[in-house]
């Protein structure tokens, strides 16, 4: 099947890119290890969880969320540099299945997200984090993250398409995704945040995803007692957020791609 082959060829190409670009590679290997160690040991010595529990048991799910959110920017940067080079023109003069360009990109990013998760998880296991739920539930916890990461990579594809250079994609990505990752329950409990911030954090998709996987990992989840719909139904909220990201940004990315490559 020509379409599947196009998709496989382009996915592979993007993976080779990540492997050969030191910065992109470090985003999903060195950075997750570093962040995990820094947060567990630096923040972990200061943060006291409401309702008890160890910070490292609490933090690993949050670190997964944070690393996946910030490394999703790779999609924007990669796509933006492809658009700036002539390589997309080359693909367009071949009888390539059109959506393969974007879908191949997001598939490659899904695989990188899995690698990134593995680095966080292994580092977590080394420093003493343990998922306490069943194997199936634990896998489900990772699945929730990967689905969310997949949705984010479509949002990042849009970002890549509207930015003029890989550098501007990188800085726009930082402005959007860094606050998204931080203003959440990922790294600190939201209970003592100022009211406005707390509301934002409790409705932030990153919080829903993090809560859902804490639940699946059977790790400490102080947000469970918060009276906000997404915190009361984190699984459903996480799935809805991810589905919404894909439903909104996949067609938008396709539209933007068409507009950007047609003159």
């Amino acid at each position, binding site marked *: 099947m*020509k379409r599947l*082959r*196009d998709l496989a*060829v*382009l996915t592979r*190409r993007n993976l*080779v*890119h990540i492997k*050969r*670009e030191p910065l992109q590679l470090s985003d999903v290997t060195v950075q997750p290890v570093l962040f995990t160690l820094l947060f567990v040991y630096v923040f972990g010595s200061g943060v006291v969880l409401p309702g008890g529990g160890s910070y490292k048991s609490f933090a690993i799910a949050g670190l997964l969320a944070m690393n996946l959110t910030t490394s999703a920017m790779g999609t924007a940067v990669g796509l933006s540099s492809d658009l700036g*080079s*002539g*390589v997309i*023109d*080359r*693909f*367009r*003069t*071949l*009888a*390539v299945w059109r959506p393969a360009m974007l879908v191949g990109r997001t598939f490659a990013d899904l695989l990188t997200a899995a690698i990134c998760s593995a680095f966080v998880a292994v580092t977590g296991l080394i420093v003493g984090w343990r998922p306490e739920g069943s194997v199936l539930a634990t896998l489900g916890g990772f699945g929730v993250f990967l689905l969310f990461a997949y949705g984010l990579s479509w949002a990042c594809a849009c970002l890549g398409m509207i930015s003029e250079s890989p550098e501007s994609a990188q800085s726009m990505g930082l402005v959007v995704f860094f606050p998204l990752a931080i203003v959440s329950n990922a790294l600190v409990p939201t209970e003592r945040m100022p009211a406005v911030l707390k509301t934002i954090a409790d409705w932030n998709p990153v919080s829903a995803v993090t809560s859902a996987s804490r639940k699946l990992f059977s790790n400490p989840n102080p947000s469970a007692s918060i009276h906000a719909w997404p915190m009361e139904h984190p699984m459903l909220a996480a799935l809805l957020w991810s589905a919404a990201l894909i439903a909104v940004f996949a067609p938008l990315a396709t539209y933007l791609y068409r507009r950007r490559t*047609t*003159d």
Partner: protein
Amino acid sequence: MTDLMIEAHALEKRFGATVALDGVDLEVPAGAILGVLGPNGAGKTTAVRILTTLSLPDAGSARVAGHDVVREAGAVRRKIGVTAQDATLDEVLTGRENLVMIGRLGGLRRAQADARAEQLLAEFELTDAAGRLLKTYSGGMRRRLDLAAGLVTRPPVLFLDEPTTGLDPNSRARMWEVIRGLVADGVTLLLTTQYLDEADELADRIVVIDRGRVIADGTAAELKAQTGGARLEVTLSEPRAEAPAALEEFVSGPVHVSHDGRRLRAPVRSAAGLATTIVRALDEAAITVDDVEVHQPSLDDVFFALTGHPTASSPEGEAAAASSPEGDPQEVVA
């Protein structure tokens, strides 16, 4: 006509206020090479982009290999190979990986794509560099790989957009050889160039484009004949006052005599055997000559006559190109 592989009718394209194409017609029969000649910004690349389905025309229509470039873009893509002016390969992949990827995307099976890549790498003398990342390639190597990429799927129609711009004279000569080889294989080719000698050297027919319009069309010889005839230069063994009169019947303008009275120059209409006829006529008049030359006009002369401005391959054009933002600083002209 049914055997036209490339045909464009009244193509128009504008970008904002800039008119890139202002009603361009092109026709290339199967197996022929059309040279599209014009200075920077004439509209050559825009025409190629439309014919290769990368760009949509604002008006007019075009068919490549019998398929409409707008409505049947997919069918056109299966028939064409393209070597664009800018690099269109993946910098982070090796030469071999690039060709295999293009083969796979072009519909070859894995083993076929591998074999085809090796074959092309050997043909283009890139086998030694095949395992290196593209970003380490020299300009000439990139151009060769780019051309090889256009050939992976053995397309019957090939578009080469300024294949030698920016190359040193050596790489340029090698590129010409490669292009001649392709033509021998029966490929239909549209080649754009800023170099008149290149069009003269490679193309069966030449279309001259300037400011989005076709301003001349014909074989190199026809174009030369169309704009100004040839120039006659006679060097006498010794000055002879009656020499200009003896040349009268052949020239198409005033005869200019040099200070020493030995060299005579005049415009002539070129004709077969003109130099021989002139030698004979002068001999009959008992005028001895050291040298008779009939200079065919260069295509540079032609271009200047057609457009009123010089081309990139003449010294003035070079200076103009260097000062314009589009001027390629690496450009080396043989």
